[in-house]
C-alpha cells in the first residue's frame, strides 16, 4: 500500500490517469445507474409485453374453454402458459366466481398480476370469465439484472480502456519529455554556454516554453555569476591597492573599536607612537588613550564620537624637551562602535607655527612683547576681567625722559642698548604672570596681573626708579643715567574698561612728566586733581 502511494506520489501519469479514471468512474456510475434504470424499465415493459402476447396467443383457446366451461381445456391453457418461465401462476375464473383453472409453479416471487377479460367467441360484448396471469418477478428481475450487468461490464471495460489510453498519452506526451528535460538539465554545463534542448516535437508547445524559460534563467544566472566574479576581482585589486597604501603611507592609519582600543594599525602608526616591533597593539588591544596621554581624545570623547562623516581633530604632545613631538589625530566614525583614525607627525609644523606666532608678538630688540602682543594681552585681560570683575589689574605706562637726546647724541645703537638694559631691568622686577611690552619708541607698558594695591605698585616703581638711577654703560667711556615718567591706572578700581585704563595710565604718565620727570603718578579723577 505504501509502495502504491509512493508510486502515485512520484508518477504524474499514474496520478493523472487515476484522477481521470475517478472522474470517468463517477460519471460512469451516474450513467450506469441511469442506464440500468431505463434498461430495467424497458426490460420490465418488454416482459409485460411478452406476457400480453402470450395472453393474446392463448386467447381463442381460453375463449373456447370459458364458453364451454371446459376445465380440462382451461387447465391445458394454464399449463401451456406456465411453460414460459416468466409465468408463475395462471388463473381462469368465470364470471360466476367458478375457478376454471389455477396452475402455478413453485419457484420465484409473485409479481403484479396481469388480468384480462375473456369474451364469448360468438358474442363480442359478453364477458365470460377473466384470465389472470401472475409473472415471476424473480425471472424478470434476473433478466433486468442480466441486462444491467452487461452494461456495467461494458462500461468497466471502457473505463479500463480510457485509463490505459490516458496513462499512455500522459506518459508519451508529458512524462517522457519532462523526464528527458530533467536528465539533460542535470548533465548541462551551463557555464560553457550550452543550452537545454527541447524534446523533438515539443519545441512549440508548453514544454518548449518551459525549456525556453529555463534557458533564459540559465543565461541570467551565468551572466550574473560572471558579473559577480568580475566585481570580486575588482574588489581584490582594490584591497591590494589599499593594503599597499596602508602599509607604505607616511600617515599613521588605525581603527578603534567601541571602547577606544586599537584594532588595526599600520607601520607608520607604530613609528609615530614609538611602538616596539614585537608589541602588537591588535593582539594586546592597547587603548588609544594609553598611547596618547594628555591632550589626546578621552575615552568619553571616543565613545560618544558618534556623528558619522564628521571628522574630529586632536593635537597632542608626546615626550618632553627636545624630544617633544606633536601628533595630530583625525577621527572619523566608520560605523557603530568603529572609528577610523589618521595620525600625522605635525612637530615641525607646530614648531614653525609657534615660532611665527611668537615672532609676531615679540619686540625683536628687547625680547618683550610688541604692540600686537600688548593688544592681545589686553584682550585676554579684558575677557578675564569680564569673568572676574572683583579682581583688579594694574596697567603701567612708562616713557623715558629725554630718550631722543640719547639717540641724537650717541646714535641709535646707544638707544637700543638703553632699551635692552631697561627691558632686562623690568623683566627682573615683574612676576611670571605679568606682561611687558614695548609699545614702540621708548614707551613700555606693563600689565601687573591681579595687582590692585597701589602701595605695592608704588614700591615696585620706586625700586625701578632706584635701579634706573644706576648709570648705563654704553662703552668704556660713556655712561649715561636715564629717567622715566610712569603713569599707573588700575583696572577694576579706576575704570572697568581696559582701553580707558590704558588711556588713564597714559594721562597719569604725562602728569608725571609735567611734574618734573623721573617719578610716577596714579590716575586721579578731575575732582581729585583740582582738589
Amino acid at each position: 500500500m505504501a509502495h502504491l502511494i509512493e508510486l502515485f506520489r512520484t508518477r504524474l501519469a499514474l496520478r493523472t490517469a487515476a484522477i481521470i479514471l475517478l472522474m470517468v468512474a463517477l460519471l460512469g456510475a451516474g450513467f450506469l445507474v441511469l442506464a440500468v434504470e431505463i434498461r430495467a424499465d424497458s426490460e420490465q415493459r418488454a416482459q409485460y409485453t411478452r406476457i400480453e402476447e402470450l395472453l393474446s396467443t392463448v386467447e381463442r383457446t381460453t375463449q373456447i374453454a370459458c364458453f364451454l366451461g371446459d376445465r380440462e381445456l382451461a387447465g391445458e391453457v394454464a399449463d401451456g402458459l406456465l411453460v414460459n418461465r416468466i409465468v408463475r401462476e395462471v388463473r381462469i375464473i368465470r364470471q360466476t366466481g367458478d375457478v376454471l383453472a389455477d396452475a402455478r409453479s413453485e419457484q420465484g416471487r409473485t409479481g403484479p398480476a396481469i388480468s384480462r377479460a375473456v369474451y364469448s367467441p360468438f358474442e363480442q360484448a359478453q364477458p365470460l370469465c377473466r384470465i389472470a396471469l401472475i409473472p415471476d418477478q424473480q425471472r424478470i428481475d434476473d433478466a433486468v439484472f442480466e441486462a444491467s450487468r452487461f452494461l456495467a461490464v461494458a462500461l468497466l471495460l471502457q473505463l479500463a480502456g480510457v485509463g490505459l489510453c490516458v496513462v499512455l498519452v500522459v506518459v508519451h506526451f508529458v512524462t517522457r519529455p519532462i523526464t528527458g528535460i530533467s536528465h539533460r538539465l542535470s548533465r548541462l554545463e551551463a557555464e560553457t554556454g550550452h543550452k537545454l534542448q527541447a524534446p523533438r516535437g515539443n519545441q512549440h508547445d508548453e514544454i518548449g516554453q518551459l525549456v525556453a524559460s529555463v534557458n533564459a534563467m540559465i543565461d541570467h544566472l551565468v551572466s550574473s555569476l560572471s558579473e559577480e566574479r568580475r566585481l570580486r576581482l575588482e574588489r581584490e585589486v582594490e584591497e591590494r591597492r589599499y593594503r599597499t597604501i596602508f602599509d607604505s603611507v607616511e600617515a599613521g592609519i588605525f581603527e578603534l573599536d567601541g571602547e577606544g582600543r586599537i584594532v588595526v594599525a599600520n607601520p607608520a602608526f607604530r613609528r609615530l607612537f614609538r611602538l616596539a616591533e614585537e608589541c602588537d597593539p591588535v593582539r594586546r588591544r592597547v587603548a588609544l588613550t594609553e598611547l596618547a596621554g594628555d591632550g589626546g581624545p578621552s575615552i568619553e570623547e571616543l565613545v560618544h564620537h558618534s556623528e558619522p562623516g564628521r571628522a574630529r581633530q586632536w593635537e597632542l604632545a608626546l615626550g618632553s624637551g627636545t624630544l617633544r613631538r606633536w601628533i595630530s589625530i583625525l577621527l572619523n566614525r566608520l560605523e557603530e562602535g568603529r572609528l577610523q583614525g589618521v595620525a600625522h607627525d605635525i612637530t615641525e609644523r607646530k614648531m614653525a607655527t609657534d615660532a611665527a606666532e611668537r615672532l609676531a608678538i615679540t619686540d625683536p630688540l628687547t625680547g618683550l612683547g610688541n604692540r600686537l602682543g600688548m593688544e592681545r594681552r589686553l584682550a585676554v585681560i579684558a575677557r578675564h576681567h569680564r569673568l572676574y570683575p572683583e579682581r583688579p589689574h594694574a596697567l603701567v605706562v612708562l616713557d623715558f625722559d629725554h630718550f631722543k637726546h640719547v639717540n641724537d647724541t650717541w646714535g641709535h645703537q646707544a638707544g637700543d642698548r638703553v632699551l635692552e638694559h631697561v627691558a632686562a631691568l623690568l623683566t627682573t622686577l615683574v612676576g611670571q604672570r605679568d606682561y611687558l611690552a614695548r609699545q614702540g619708541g621708548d614707551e613700555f607698558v606693563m600689565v601687573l596681573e591681579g595687582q590692585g594695591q597701589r602701595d605695592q605698585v608704588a614700591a615696585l616703581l620706586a625700586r625701578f626708579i632706584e635701579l634706573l638711577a644706576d648709570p648705563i654703560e654704553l662703552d668704556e667711556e660713556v655712561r649715561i643715567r636715564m629717567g622715566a615718567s610712569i603713569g599707573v591706572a588700575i583696572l577694576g578700581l579706576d575704570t572697568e574698561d581696559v582701553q580707558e585704563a590704558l588711556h588713564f595710565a597714559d594721562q597719569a604718565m604725562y602728569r608725571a612728566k609735567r611734574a618734573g620727570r623721573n617719578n610716577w603718578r596714579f590716575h586721579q579723577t578731575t575732582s581729585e586733581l583740582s582738589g
Partner: protein
Amino acid sequence: MTRFRHFIAAALLVTGGLAHADIAVVTNANSGIAQMSRSDVINIFMGRYRKLPNGELALPIDLAPVKARFYQALVDKNLAEINSWWARLVFSGQASPPHQAETTAQAISLVVHNPSALGYVDTHHLTSELHVVLVLHE
C-alpha cells in the same frame, strides 16, 4: 295468446315475403317455451348448454340448405369456421354437433315429433305445428 302468436307469424310471413326470407328458430308447439333469446340459441347450437330453458335435454337440428345462412345470421361465421369449431369440440370430447336434417320437411318432422327438439326453417316454410321462439333477420 295463440291468436297473437298467429298474428306475429302472419306478419312475419308478409314482411319476409316482401323483403328477404328470414330464418325462424322453432320448437315443438308443446315445448312450453314461449321465446328464446339469441344467446340462448347460440349457447345450445354452439354446444355450450345441452338443456332447453324448460329443463329438457336439448336436441338441436341443423338444416343443411339453410345452415350457412343460419350461422351467418346467428354468430356471423361461415360454415368452415363452424366446422372447425365443432372439430375442436369433438376432439376434446366435450360436446357433439347438432343433428343434421337434409330437408326442411325432415327438419319439421323432427321438431314436430320431438318436444325437446330445437330447429330452424326458412320463414316461408313455417307451418302451424311449429312454434317460433326467435326470428333471425338477415
